[in-house]
């Protein structure tokens, strides 16, 4: 009799399993109440009511009013509608700021704006853990700064930004603050009013909800220019028939995540910390980002560099051993250019190349951690036995790099 090999899914930062309760809640909206919310008959009304309920639920969970919540196809779309929507409405405000550790769905949007000549783009500085240096924000804000965009919880290194002071500094200068909350939603307490943000992006598939659905919070009275034309759904901001079942799934998954947060997240943190401690018994490793379990670290996120070997080779070895993880950033693992997030916090290219991200969720078990530890130790040992990378050369580059990196950073700040 053969036993099925254990699979440890430790890539919840990329996507998660949809909880059975969520699926159950969604199903009748495919089969029974399939009307279009814009239709005038009974099934249309039913769908519209469903949307209203979901909107109220999501608004309540983030401390917003229902009219401030717009449903989208996910955080990528929310980020695009927010930033591009502002840009189109304010052609005279020519300056925008982002953190250097934004997700591609923010970074590439503003890079495009800059390339097409609409804005001047500047990047703020972060420290060695990825926390925004407030002085760099004070220094770079201008009278014509339209917006600042900051990732609330970083998907690669798990840094959680303290948004409140960032918002205050932005508002003093008349700039708007957008936060990408895709990773923090459902993992830490989140209230848009307390955070002071003007716009915030969310999605469902990082918190055990379905893919392809998300939301954008837009502070009352703040206007955006829509990106595409059609019928006037979502107050005219996002035309197109709403994905009602998915929106129901988003609301349900978020509700469960927030409801269970106090119970679940300490457990997730406990397992993550244990995994980190046990992986650190492997020689020549380094944890990237803030201290695991601290208030500035996303629960469940562990980013670790295994020196002298390359991340994709580790990932592939783990894959064949039934452990599913990400290397560097999931989105850039196809190009050899190292993750800009990791180089922004001062990692050498070769340190960035050797980084692996484990992201745990409520569904992970002790067995998953045990399995990951065994498989990782095996993979690292095997790859190091054949590596061409000579550690001494690295140490030399490392000390030279540290000296210049911190000198430049200091000069930038002085």
């Amino acid at each position, binding site marked *: 009799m053969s036993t099925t090999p254990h699979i440890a899914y430790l890539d919840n930062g990329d996507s998660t399993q949809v909880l059975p309760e969520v699926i159950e809640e969604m199903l009748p909206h495919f089969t029974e109440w399939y009307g279009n919310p814009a239709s005038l008959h009974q099934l249309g009304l039913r769908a519209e009511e469903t949307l209203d309920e979901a909107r109220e639920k999501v608004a309540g969970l983030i401390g917003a009013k229902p009219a401030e919540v717009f449903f989208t196809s996910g955080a990528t779309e929310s980020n695009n509608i927010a930033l591009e929507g502002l840009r189109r409405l304010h052609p005279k405000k020519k300056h925008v700021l982002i953190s250097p550790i934004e997700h591609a769905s923010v970074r590439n949007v503003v890079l495009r704006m800059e390339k097409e000549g609409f804005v001047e783009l500047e990047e703020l500085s972060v420290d060695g853990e990825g926390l925004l240096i407030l002085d760099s924000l004070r220094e770079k804000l201008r009278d014509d700064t339209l917006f600042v965009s900051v990732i609330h919880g970083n998907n690669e290194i798990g840094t959680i930004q303290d948004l409140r002071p960032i918002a205050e500094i932005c508002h003093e200068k008349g700039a708007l603050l957008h936060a990408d909350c895709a990773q923090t939603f459902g993992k830490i307490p989140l209230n848009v009013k307390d955070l002071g943000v003007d716009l915030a992006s969310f999605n469902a598939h990082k918190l055990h909800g379905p893919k392809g659905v998300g939301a954008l919070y837009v502070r009352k009275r703040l206007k955006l220019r829509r990106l595409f034309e059609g019928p006037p759904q979502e107050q005219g901001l996002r035309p197109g028939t709403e994905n009602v079942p998915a929106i129901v799934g988003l609301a349900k998954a978020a509700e469960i995540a927030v409801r269970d947060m106090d119970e679940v997240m300490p457990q997730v943190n406990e397992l993550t910390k244990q995994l980190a401690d046990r992986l650190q018994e492997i020689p020549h490793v380094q944890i990237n980002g803030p201290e695991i379990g601290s208030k500035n670290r996303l629960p469940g996120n562990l980013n670790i560099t295994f020196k002298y070997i*390359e991340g*994709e080779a580790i990932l*592939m070895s783990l894959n*064949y051993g039934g452990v599913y993880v990400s290397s560097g950033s999931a989105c850039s693992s196809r*190009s*050899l*250019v190292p993750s800009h997030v990791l180089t922004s916090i001062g990692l050498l290219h*070769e340190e960035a190349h050797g980084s692996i991200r484990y992201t745990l969720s409520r569904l992970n078990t002790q067995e998953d951690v045990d399995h990951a530890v065994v498989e990782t130790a095996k993979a690292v040992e095997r790859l190091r036995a054949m590596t*061409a990378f000579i550690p001494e050369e690295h140490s030399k580059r490392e000390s030279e790099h540290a000296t210049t990196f911190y000198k430049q950073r200091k000069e930038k700040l002085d």
Partner: protein
Amino acid sequence: MAIKYTQKVIDEFTNPENVGELDNANAVSTEGSPACGDMITYNMIIDPKTLIIEDIRFRSYGCASNIATASMASKMAKGKHIDEIKKMRPKAVTEELEGLPAVKIHCSVLAINGLKSAIRQWEEESGLVDPQEPIITEKIVMEALRDVINPETGLSLTKMNMVRHVEVQDNKVFVEVLVGETDEMYYENIVEEAREHIESLPGVIDATVKLTEIPVA
């Protein structure tokens, strides 16, 4: 974006052959660097009478396909006459592996170049050829660009007619590359790869690589 490897690549990655080094190697090479994220070293024993590669070992720092191509190339080189290897194209390794994803084609270039530079080093030391003259010409730069792969297509810049202009002055090189329809996400990669290949030519002091986008209008 999942990377899809052939079973051959997976097998070669999980069970590579000829790993390590040889105590009595007479030909060695290192291609790539840790900063680039891929690096291969080869150790060989070349029989000076028969010019046959009698034994070979490799070490690899890099992704799964880097390890697989380094291993496969070592197997293909073992027992062969050096002239045969000198004529070998990266495609031969790719075919032996039953294909590589476009973004990974550059691994086969690295492996083949590794074999060739080990042979070259041995030939120079044995007095069979003159050490390379460090006079850089446009032709030499073009040759080097043959090894730079557009990760979107898996084809070289020269094959895709992307090299618009090459200029050499006092061993400083300037290259203009037309990106055409290539996705922006590969720009940085192409610039880095091209610069690195040119700067690794003996004698080159500096390389500037400029990308030109063809206007869409």
